[in-house]
């Protein structure tokens, strides 16, 4: 019975992390809510985790320019491929 509603800190923080991507289920969120109500450490973790998400959203961006190989790298690669063809 108790296990249905009560989860440990490891499980709670796993759900908390999933929730940062809005992918936790309703049931998981309920269990997390109950746990956060009774656990100070996870409460603090949860707050800091939200800050971590904000920091990532603010500072991590997809590189819009395409990554390319340099001419030298291509030449070297070309040589190796040609060698294998022979």
């Amino acid at each position: 019975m108790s296990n249905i509603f009560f989860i440990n800190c490891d499980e709670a923080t796993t759900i908390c992390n999933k929730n940062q991507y809005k992918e936790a289920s309703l049931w998981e969120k309920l269990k997390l809510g109950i746990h956060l109500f009774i656990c100070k450490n996870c409460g603090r973790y949860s707050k800091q985790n939200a800050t971590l998400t904000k920091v990532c959203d603010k500072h991590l961006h997809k590189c819009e320019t395409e990554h390319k190989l340099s001419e030298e790298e291509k030449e070297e690669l070309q040589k190796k491929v040609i060698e294998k063809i022979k």
Partner: protein
Amino acid sequence: MSIQSKHTLDPNNWVGAHSDYLFNYTITRVDNEEVAKDIVQETFFSGLKAQNNFRGQASERTWLISILKRKIIDHYRKINSTKGKAEVRVNFYQDGDRKGTWLEERVPKMWDNEAERDIENEELKSALDTCIDNLPEKYRMVFVMKNVQHYETEEICNELGITASNLWVIIHRARHQLRKCLEDNWFAK
């Protein structure tokens, strides 16, 4: 006689025609230039060996991408089986009465009250970059795919050959380590 024109392979021209595309494709998944270069090279080599299996139904590039995808999974399996495991830092009691509760030394510390205001800081960005670089490779790979490239969970699972619960365990551990790293180097310094 077939009226449908079949695709053909032209290995002499692979590097010129496809290497940038394959390199860019790889780097958004493995987040490391040297590794990406090696994977592209291996893809061409495997392609050469497997030329006889090419049926001409897909384009040359599509065919090379399908080889590349297998190479990325191979790379992921390799780092998953070797390095990653030893580097896992435990945050919770693993057994006994207190199983799953915080280890004393891993309990989150109080952060500076200014934390909220500090988010825009450029130095924080470099602290974050360093912390991400310090993640074990497989955690970094999954974290970057999720948080930087914004691939869907399902897509990452398919591309790396892992289950959703594997993925959440990895994200869980990566974020624990990042939180701790930013705490030590920034917020609670």
